[in-house]
């Protein structure tokens, strides 16, 4: 059964088809959400929320405008951005504040890919620099270099023009390069077209 047939059956209310769609796209959706949010718990929550929205509004899906995954991706990225905005204004109850006084906060995030991954030095440096890039530019970079989308599709996902998407990607890359070449940078420095990790005493990487 093709994706289009599954979607057609799901639109007709077939729960088995809906489950097939969910399981087929869950991992990809989770990974994309994780890259955008950098938190596995938030990513899982947002993915569930996006799937619930998609299944509730399946009749709005227009196969002529793109694949099911393309539609789901638009919903998912939008939810991730909303989640990130809400995270900027955290609501902290007094009980939590009292508990925080009693026990020291966990200095490490719940999921640290750089720590969990066996990244090469350069990739670790790029990952850490990516965290410092502005959110809009980072979203565009992820859609461009992880999802491999053309600028027109990035524009559709981010809700901007293709020129704006192109500018965001270029600005993101320029920010990354600046971060990686900063002489006082915590992460790396850049000489002769190669990244050098300070911790490695100037040894060439990459």
């Amino acid at each position, binding site marked *: 059964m093709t994706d289009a047939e599954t979607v057609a059956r799901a639109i007709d209310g077939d729960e088995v088809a809906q489950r097939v769609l969910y399981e087929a796209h869950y991992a990809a959706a989770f990974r994309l959400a994780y890259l955008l949010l950098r938190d596995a718990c938030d990513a899982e929550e947002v993915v569930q929320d996006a799937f619930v929205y998609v299944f509730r509004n399946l009749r709005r899906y227009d196969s002529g405008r793109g694949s099911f995954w393309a539609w789901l991706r638009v919903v998912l990225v939008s939810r991730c951005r909303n989640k990130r905005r809400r995270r900027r204004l955290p609501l902290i109850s007094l009980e939590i504040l009292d508990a925080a006084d009693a026990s020291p906060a966990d200095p490490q995030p719940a999921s640290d890919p750089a720590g969990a*991954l066996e990244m090469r030095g350069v990739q670790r440096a790029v990952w850490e620099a990516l965290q410092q890039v502005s959110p809009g530019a980072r979203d565009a970079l992820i859609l461009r270099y992880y999802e491999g989308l053309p600028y027109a599709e990035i524009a559709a996902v981010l809700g901007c023009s293709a020129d704006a998407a192109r500018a965001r990607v270029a600005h993101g890359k320029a920010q990354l390069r600046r971060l990686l070449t900063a002489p006082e940078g915590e992460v790396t420095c850049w000489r002769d077209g190669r990244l050098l990790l300070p911790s490695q005493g100037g040894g060439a990487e990459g």
Partner: protein
Amino acid sequence: MSEIHPREIDLARFGDGEASTGIAEHLHWCAHCRSVVADYRWLQGEIAATLALAADAVPVPRPKWLAVQGHLFARQRRQIAGWRASALVSVMLVVCLMLSAPNLLVLCQASFDRFVVTTSVVSVVRQVTKVATASRQKLEAVTVPAPATAVVSGERMASMATPTPAISCEEAGPLPTPAFVLPPTPLVPET
């Protein structure tokens, strides 16, 4: 040959495959900009590799279809419960009205009937008036010809009907004597 270096953003775009003849020409002789473009091309590869590695390394939790299904059913249940509640409230309102004001419904029915009768009478009268007006207009159009008119001086319309002759006081003859004239009433002195 331009000696002004392109902006870094433009070099980043060029490194991503955006065609620009000006930059391509500049890169022929500018080693610095060439190295910047090479940096960007290298960086793109590293970004893609880093993101792919990060995404593959994170453990994907098990899909929780039951949770999604639960959310979907919960919404349906909420909708059905909402409909039931609104129907129940409507029925209760009607029952309360009937119990508290039994004459209210009768009054409503009577006023409704009156309204219907009034509107029907008004509409019948309007129709009759319209028909009468239309028939009178038709009759006038057949019996009374419109006065013949001609254009005078291109602007005003003058009537071609026979003009009424002017009658002056001198020309006018004596008024005809009526056939029967009442004699003047004699003055009777009061006694």
